């Protein structure tokens, strides 16, 4: 039996497994992205505004936030996942399945995204911020109407990088029972030497990453007026 014939024979069953695996992956990545933005965006902005000479100087807070972010950034994701197992159990009730995986995924991606936000916001022209001060703008107005809109292309680029990193993290989450495409690749592809599943998951992961990147690039072109 040639490989095409074998694939055709197995496809009805495989396609269903891969379909649910893809949905699980997207589910995990999507929610982890939402939490990363909700926490990482303000965190990244604070990392800039708490600078000495920044909008809201607070050296101590800045040092603390910086340290927390660095701890999050320095842990390999696979270690972080194991390290937060008890927190996951506390929040979700279990450590297995895609919903449980959202916890370590978010915790891993928040500091990652926060640093990217910091870089993007730091790029905003100081003279423009000064101009807003000279117009009598409040600090919150400066964040909402100057820093974030001016940094938007960089923020979207950072978001795309975060989504791509999350797709890769989510595959790792599969290794400890997180579900999704990574789980399929490891259980079927690696442990049962099933090359069909292995390559199918590889292709799907590449497609997801490529789609995220293309969508991101499209949005960046639309919002960038430099």
């Amino acid at each position, binding site marked *: 039996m040639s490989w095409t014939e074998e694939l055709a024979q197995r496809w009805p069953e495989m396609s269903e497994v891969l379909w649910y695996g893809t949905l699980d992956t997207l589910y995990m990545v999507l929610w982890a992205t939402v939490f990363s933005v909700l926490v990482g965006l303000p965190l990244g902005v604070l990392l800039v505004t708490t600078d000495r000479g920044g909008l809201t100087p607070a050296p101590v807070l800045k040092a603390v936030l910086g340290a927390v972010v660095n701890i999050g950034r320095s842990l390999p994701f696979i270690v972080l996942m194991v390290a937060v197992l008890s927190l996951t159990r506390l929040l979700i009730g279990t450590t297995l399945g895609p919903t449980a995986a959202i916890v370590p995924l978010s915790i891993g991606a928040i500091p990652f995204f926060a640093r990217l936000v910091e870089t993007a916001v730091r790029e905003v*022209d100081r003279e423009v911020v*000064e101009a*807003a001060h*000279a*117009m009598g*703008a409040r600090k919150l107005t400066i964040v909402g109407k100057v820093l974030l*809109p001016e940094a938007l292309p960089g923020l979207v680029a950072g978001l795309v990088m975060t989504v791509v990193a999350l797709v890769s993290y989510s595959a790792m989450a599969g290794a400890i029972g997180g579900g999704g495409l990574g789980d399929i690749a490891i259980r079927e592809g690696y442990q049962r030497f099933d090359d069909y599943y292995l390559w199918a998951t590889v292709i799907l992961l590449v497609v997801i990453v490529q789609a995220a990147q293309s969508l991101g690039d499209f949005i960046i072109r639309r919002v960038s007026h*430099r």
Partner: protein
Amino acid sequence: MIEAVGLRKVYPLKQREVVALDGVDLHVEQGEIFGVVGQSGAGKSTLLRCVNLLERPTSGTVSVDGRELTGMSAGGLRQARRGIGMVHQHFALLSSRTVAANVAFPLEIAGVPRARRAARVGELLELVGLADKAKAYPAQLSGGQKQRVGIARALASDPKVLLSDEATSALDPATTESILELLRDLNRQLGLTILLITHEMDVIKRICDSAAIMENGSFREAGKVLDLIGTPDSLLAASLFPLPATDVPDAVALTYPRSFDEPLMSELTRRFDVDVNVLGGAVENVAGTSVGRLNVQVRGANREAALGFLADKGLLVREANR
């Protein structure tokens, strides 16, 4: 309109202190254009930023339009700043907003309703000659157009005072000319008081009513431009009319504070029987007035009477070699 008294600004560094402003008194009258000129590092920029308290002076007080800014709360200061427009060297436009949205920005900050904002933005773009660029983004504009947007934005909230931070320094000569003309027009049409800083003497000459020359954090001289030009040995006159020093005997430096229709020199020779020899001269257009300086050698028995005659005519006469 702007009253700053005893301004000092000291930046503490690790080993020493840097004195950026060393006791500056600034007095800008309602409706005039006041220029502060100096080299980079003289403290001009710090001075300008102290006027709207972007920099807080170490000591001294600042009042604008009769209200003391240095004693205000944060909220009061924000309110007061809305009455002080500012134009920046590198334009400081929001790249993410269209021209119209940039001009509308200070109105948004001040909480002006959308419909009134749109009408006001239309007027302002008309005023600076950019009505057709409302929907463009700053990146699509030339430097001069960007600065026009910057000026329109600075005028949005109807300020009485405009601060200009090297507004023409990033522009080419022709564009500089047109921006200076625009500032002069706004000053005349709207009665706008303008405080500008520049490192170009030319800017002072072209549009300023009053000027100060700044060095090492303080004013070397300050006053009405025409008065300064008439003042013997003033730095302003020396840099506007750089006549070569002369060691010719009986040489006299004459300053024409305005243009004269009468042929003064030939009248001089006829009436007083003196010999007049022109050594050097320059004519400049200063603050809209033709001003000239002439180095002449005057010799003859009636020399004193001749010089007295010129002084009576309104010329400023000074012996060049004393």
